[in-house]
């Protein structure tokens, strides 16, 4: 639990009313994705940039989504170093018309862990080019400050590896990032259940980004609704002002009038 008051979520001057960001990949069908995004109540959806298949040029993954209803956050997935990320970012800006960018540099295909050095290098270049950079990072408080210092709009530390659904394995580091950050903290990656999302917001995170947990659920729409409610519940808890945490018990019932009490002989 965090005593951190809940402030408006503002990224690069834009207020977002939902603290749940949603990825649009890996869904079984375009319809399932569009319905889950709708049910989540999100205002911000991530997209990826890929080569067109010249032999079969029609992409259908986003066909069912009304792109005018959501702010797009294109990612640089597939980039293995800073140069590839910068190239993808420029293409993404031209394709989507937004300067917002989820910067991710993941050279290792097994764990998809982000490369901190290449991410920082790319961030410096992209901020200078006018991008609104939301970097995906390991839960490293020092790196988070360095990225903030070079002008990133948020930091997006992982809870556990992308798509693993393992929850906030980095909780202690996330707490330090949240404590020190002067930009919004978005917990990205590894959030597998609504309780994980609630835990992140209760901890003091400003938002969460979820994709796989929705996409691979048997009923993505119901799962999206569950995440929406969990995030709202955690926000409400933050507003309610959580009580202190203590190592010792503190009775909830009155400490007087027990049946075993005896005050000596009476007439």
């Amino acid at each position, binding site marked *: 639990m965090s005593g951190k008051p809940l402030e408006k979520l503002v990224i690069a001057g834009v207020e977002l009313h939902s603290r749940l960001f949603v990825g649009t990949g890996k869904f079984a069908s375009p319809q399932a994705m569009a319905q889950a995004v709708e049910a989540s109540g999100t205002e911000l959806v*991530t*997209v990826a*940039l890929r080569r067109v298949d010249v032999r079969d040029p029609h992409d259908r*993954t986003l066909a069912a989504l009304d792109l005018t209803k959501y702010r797009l956050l294109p990612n640089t997935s597939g980039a293995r170093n800073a140069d590839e990320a910068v190239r993808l970012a420029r*293409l993404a800006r031209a394709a989507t018309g937004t300067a917002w960018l989820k910067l991710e540099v993941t050279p290792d295909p097994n764990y998809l862990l982000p490369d901190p050095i290449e991410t920082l290098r790319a961030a410096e270049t992209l901020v200078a080019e006018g991008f609104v950079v939301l970097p995906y990072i390991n839960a490293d408080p020092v790196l988070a400050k360095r990225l903030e210092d070079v002008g990133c709009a948020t930091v997006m530390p992982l809870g556990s590896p992308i798509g693993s659904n393992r929850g906030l394995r980095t909780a202690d580091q996330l707490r330090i990032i949240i404590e020190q950050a002067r930009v919004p903290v978005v917990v990205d990656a590894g959030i597998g259940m609504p309780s994980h999302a609630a835990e992140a917001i209760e901890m003091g995170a400003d938002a969460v980004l979820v994709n796989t947990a929705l996409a691979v659920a048997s009923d993505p729409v119901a799962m999206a609704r569950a995440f929406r409610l969990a995030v709202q519940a955690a926000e409400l808890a933050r507003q309610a002002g959580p009580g202190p945490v203590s190592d010792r018990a503190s009775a909830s019932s009155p400490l007087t009038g027990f049946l075993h009490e005896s005050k000596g002989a009476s007439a």
Partner: protein
Amino acid sequence: MKVRLNGVDEVLDGEMTLDELVARLGIEPTNLVIELNGAVLSREEWPAHSVHEGDAIEMVRFVGGG
């Protein structure tokens, strides 16, 4: 004329601009962006650029992703 299109060698018949190439390939131009020899070109810029022998052309668009 030989070009490298999305990492594959392709032979194109005759002169054409980028918007003509997109139309000839039957590609829906929505959400599409082209990189011509490393330079990013948005849709408005395609008619002003012709394809030449040896060009490296990348056609990308955004798709579902996390």
